[in-house]
């Protein structure tokens, strides 16, 4: 025991300070956790409410006593898929989404590659216009041209208008992706005698597959969610899901159970897709904005 009395006096308060600091730290941690839980609940609860309501009968939806305790039923989903015949609308959304994403990939991926390699800032900036311009302003002229060509009501105007959404998105995501591929790899390919197109097809493209996958899923989600273009340009037979959902709102009353079941059917696929691409989704959603 070499500690002096003086040292012992000093040590005691120090330990007190340390433990009170630790307590303050845990208290801050508790508050942080409470905040995290509240934030999560705020964003999750409404979606959960939509899901729960989709499994309720009309009676249970109107009954505050049956808010959380009710007999789940699949009748709403049967109605949506059976009586309201939603399958063709799902098919329409799928066709428009897949085709507009597919064509946009064929056009957009090479464009993004060339814009990255040749530093075509002005050209890539031009694609930003599609992000900024209000869709409403394009619809009258588009409708005019498409109806002149006798295309309104078919898939063509829908695919073309949705390509206006998917193409710039894919191009912007791929721009940042190609920027990440080292130029040395392409140089090596050139030394081995590959042509410009060969370098793109055999070196850049295979390396860009993960980026292409993300871009495709995001583009498909955007096409799937799009409402405005299909509202004007789709016909009876080509109506997409977001437009078809209005079937549940009659003049007199709303079939809430059916409406929520339809909402779940629309939302679930894109949410599952987003789960797989969540790492890249922010860069995709903000494509263009952060590059100036």
């Amino acid at each position: 025991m070499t500690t002096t009395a003086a040292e012992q006096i000093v040590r005691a308060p120090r330990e007190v300070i340390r433990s009170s600091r630790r307590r303050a730290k845990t208290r801050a941690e508790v508050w942080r956790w409470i905040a995290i839980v509240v934030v999560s609940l705020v964003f999750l609860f409404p979606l959960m409410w939509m899901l729960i309501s989709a499994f309720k009968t009309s009676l249970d939806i109107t009954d505050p006593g049956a808010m959380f305790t009710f007999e789940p039923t699949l009748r709403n989903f049967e109605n949506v898929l059976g009586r309201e015949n939603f399958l063709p609308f799902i098919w329409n959304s799928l066709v428009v989404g897949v085709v507009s994403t597919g064509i946009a990939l064929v056009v957009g991926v090479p464009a993004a590659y060339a814009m990255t390699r040749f530093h075509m800032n002005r050209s890539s900036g031009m694609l930003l216009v599609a992000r900024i311009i209000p869709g409403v302003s394009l619809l009258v002229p588009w409708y005019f041209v498409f109806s002149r060509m006798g295309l309104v009501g078919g898939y063509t105007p829908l695919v073309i208008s949705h390509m206006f959404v998917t193409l710039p998105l894919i191009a912007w995501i791929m721009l940042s992706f190609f920027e990440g591929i080292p130029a040395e790899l392409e140089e090596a390919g050139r030394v081995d005698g590959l042509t410009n197109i060969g370098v793109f097809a055999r070196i850049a493209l295979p390396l860009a597959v993960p980026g292409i996958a993300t871009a495709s899923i995001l583009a498909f989600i955007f096409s799937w969610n799009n409402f405005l273009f299909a509202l004007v340009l789709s016909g009876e037979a080509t109506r997409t899901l977001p437009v078809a959902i209005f079937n549940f709102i009659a003049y007199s009353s709303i079939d809430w159970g059916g409406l929520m079941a339809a909402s779940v059917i629309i939302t679930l696929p894109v949410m599952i897709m987003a789960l797989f691409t969540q790492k890249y989704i922010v860069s995709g959603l903000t494509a263009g904005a952060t590059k100036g």
Partner: protein
Amino acid sequence: MSVMTTEGSRTRGAGPPGPLSAWANRHIKWVFTVPALAFTAVMVLFPVIYTVVLSVTDARGSIQRDFSFIGAGNFVEMFTDFPRFWPAVGRTFLFTGGAVLVELVLGLGIALLLRKPFRGQGAVRVVILMPLVATPVAVAMMWLLIFEPTIGFANEFLGWFGISGLGWISDPGQALPTLMFVDIWQWTPMVALILLAGLSTLPEEPEEAAVVDGANAWQRLIHVTLPMLLPAIVAAVLLRSIDALKTFDLLYATKGRGGGSLHEAETLNILAYSLSFEYNDYGMASAVLVVFFLIIVLFSWLLFRISKVGSQQ
């Protein structure tokens, strides 16, 4: 090695490149980019020119019918004698300004909250991602049920605290604030995720230096973190403002054409749609759209300038 040789022989086996592919190879820069650029240009340029032309005509009823040049007539009428125009301008700015401001504050809070790693961080990120990808029309319908005055959860929730229910979306006076709330719910995560990405790229030294200098958490946030985060903040505000100005799905799905019986949720976007596809008044609709364009362009330009000034500091 064997892979290399087969690759090589396959190229040779294809024979000398044809004149077309040789030409494409030489001009790869334009061969690759022209289709995308041409598509975008055609889809935008023709409509924009057409809109500007229509705005100075009396085009009505059908676009295919003849219409004549009337000069600034539509604009004069819109500014002086069209009762739905100025309120729509006001609502557009109120909706955008209010929603984006709240989204920025809450998004910053959430970004700071999630900044330090914690157990379950991935799960929370997924949760705040969900509103972003959810189909806007379905989201609108979901909130329509929650805010339904008699059967909705919102009033039930207020009832637990003894607060009497509100009319929410169905009440003309409360519709716009309620819809701003929905916009805030759906898009705050976007702001949070952009700022979170911005925070993750910041260097740690200035913050540590501030700790050494004895700055408290609040001082560090105001004087160290926020100035460095400015480019990300401007990006988030720019992106959200452009989208909020153009909000259509939410307003149309909940309030219908014209933004409700008293046009209580009618913004410039909804007004232009209503004039085009409800009244077939293409001349007036185009005049509204020209003003709308100018607002969006001016706004984007302003924010770009601010971001430039910010990044020069």
